[in-house]
């Protein structure tokens, strides 16, 4: 473990947040966030509902706008410049809680849309990449169906493949298994674990603590808009230091 951590500390940073603050009206949703993510690092973000964890990762690809502080992704500073935002979004894939597949397009068209229009990949190549990714998430036979014909777990695997089609450097997961029926959680987590083993840089907002133990390099606990505690998973789960962390872990682990 120690060697892996040492290797990571030598890796370059791909995401840097410095003094990031955000308010919804009077509500202080992100409070002085500092975060440095290394290339290849896997981070799990957890915390109670309304703690700002989704907002945090949505700020990284500008689905939400932060009001103070700097966010640098893959060397590009986020600003109001549309060119910068689009450059970052090309490098950052995102998977949502509610899948957000495009219901009027087939699975294959869902996957090839962004490569064709954003990256100008020729249609044939895009389809080949898409079919390979569908094989990787183990549903190539569904390529010509529409999202509405698939189960939730299958849809979420398509959503992961869709994000991977852009060959992103970083993947953001916003509670990817929260909207799934229990028997489908595993098939999605398996794909995510595989992705992590291949070295993808990942930030996952999730309450799947088994997943955190298996792949995370670092677990971050957020509460009331601030990062309360962060540590390697063994330490984090075995010896939480902050009272709020203990309370939260007590609530989600003992039931």
């Amino acid at each position, binding site marked *: 473990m120690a060697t892996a951590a040492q290797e990571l500390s030598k890796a370059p940073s791909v995401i840097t947040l410095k003094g990031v603050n955000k308010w919804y009206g009077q509500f202080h949703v992100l409070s002085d966030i500092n975060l440095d993510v290394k290339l290849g690092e896997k981070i799990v973000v957890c915390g109670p509902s309304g703690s700002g964890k989704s907002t945090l990762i949505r700020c990284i*690809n500008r689905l939400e706008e932060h009001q103070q502080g700097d966010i640098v992704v893959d060397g590009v500073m986020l600003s109001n410049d549309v060119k910068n935002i689009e450059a970052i*979004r090309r490098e950052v894939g995102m998977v949502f809680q509610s899948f957000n597949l495009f219901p*009027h397009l087939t699975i294959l068209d869902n996957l090839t*849309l*962004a490569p064709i*229009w954003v990256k100008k990949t020729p249609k044939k190549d895009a389809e080949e990449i898409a079919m390979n990714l569908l094989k990787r998430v183990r549903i190539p036979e569904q390529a010509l169906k529409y999202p*509405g014909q698939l189960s939730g777990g299958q849809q979420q695997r398509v959503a992961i493949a869709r994000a991977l089609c*852009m060959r992103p450097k970083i993947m953001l997961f916003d509670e990817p298994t929260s909207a799934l029926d229990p028997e489908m959680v595993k098939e999605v987590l398996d794909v995510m674990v595989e992705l992590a083993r291949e070295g993808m840089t990942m930030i996952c907002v999730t309450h799947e603590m088994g997943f955190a133990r298996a792949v995370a390099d670092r677990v971050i606990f957020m509460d009331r808009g601030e990062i309360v505690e962060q540590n390697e998973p063994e330490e984090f789960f075995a010896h939480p230091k902050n009272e709020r962390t203990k309370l939260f872990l007590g609530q989600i682990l003992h039931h």
Partner: protein
Amino acid sequence: MADVAQGERRQLAPPVNDAGAFGWLRKNLFSSWGNAITTIVLVGAIGWILARFIDWAVINAVWTAPTGQDCRGHGACWALIHEKYRYIFFGSFPYEQQWRPLLAVITMLAMLILSSDRRMWNARLLWIWGVGSFLTFLLMFGQIHISISLILFVALGAGGLGMLMRGGVGTPAEVNGWRALAAIGAVGLILRVTGVLPAWSLPIAPFDYVETHLWGGLPVTMILATYGLLFAFPYGILLALGRRSHLPLIKGLCVGFIELIRGVPLISLLIMASVMLPLFLPSGTTIDKFLRAQVAVILFAGAYIAEIIRGGLQSLPKGQFEAADAMGLNYFQKTTLIILPQALRVVIPPLINTFIGFFKDTSLVLIIGIFDFLNTANQALVDPNWAGFPGEVYLFAAFVYFCFCFSMSRYAKYLEVELNKGTRR
């Protein structure tokens, strides 16, 4: 305590509760004394009215007669329709030339039918409508002078559209082609306005020229409705998107326009277009009355269509916008590839409802002296030889309107099913 299912699950057929037609009748029409009496009374009343109507409209009807006098004392006077149908369909268009509006109507119907097939929804449609519209107006006017300004304007428009649509995906050579076309159009137009290029036009004049004030009947209704909605539709989409814009100026303009137009009756807009607009134009310039009415219809329909489409846009989950954003699609790609295809599907029923409404509302152009189908039918009643048979004429007009509106309604139904194939959640 464990209770475990044993053996195989029994596969049962659903229960049968209504046996055949007799069962259906009993269940729906004769389930109680009250229901039975209501059914018998209603069937009797409907049968009686229907018998009277058939007696009037078919059995006792007069199909041909020299004047309306011969119809008196008989049933329906279809002889009036027989006598006047040419006027009702084509208005004051020169009598011996009326094959032209007939062909124009057939051309428009052909365009509409061709474009109703989903397999035709591609670049072919532009050709169909370009050639078809040219034919329609050539037949109606008889002569068309294509000025150099128009050619340049079309070049600029086509080039601009090409740059917009293909800029992201076309090969560099193709994109440069569109750019060159737009540049030729723009430079040419500037040269023309500054007077460097002479006012030249290409005359196409196979027939006698017929002015728009002689047009009437079905072609007028069809042109006003078809081209009114054809232009109002994209215009309405732009207004709807503008109304949701984050830019205050664009949003304000769109909201202001929509509310202004929706706040006034179509009649007042038509009167403004026909009476007031000329007052603001420099003396000597005139805009054709028919064109003014057409523009008024486009503006009016655009505002209504915009509000319907806005409803469709609002019905989409926020996640669709976010997913498109997160993939790095720009605003134009997001709107045309993700948002509009879904939003328009949702609003097909209210949209067709508006289309049907506007098809009939074009009759209001009567107020500024344009004779559409309903107004020529009305005018046919003025002849003293045939006075006194409004029922027949209006029934006939209603029948023709019904054919159009019912086709639209059925087509909307087909479209809903067709577009939702496989995508139903």
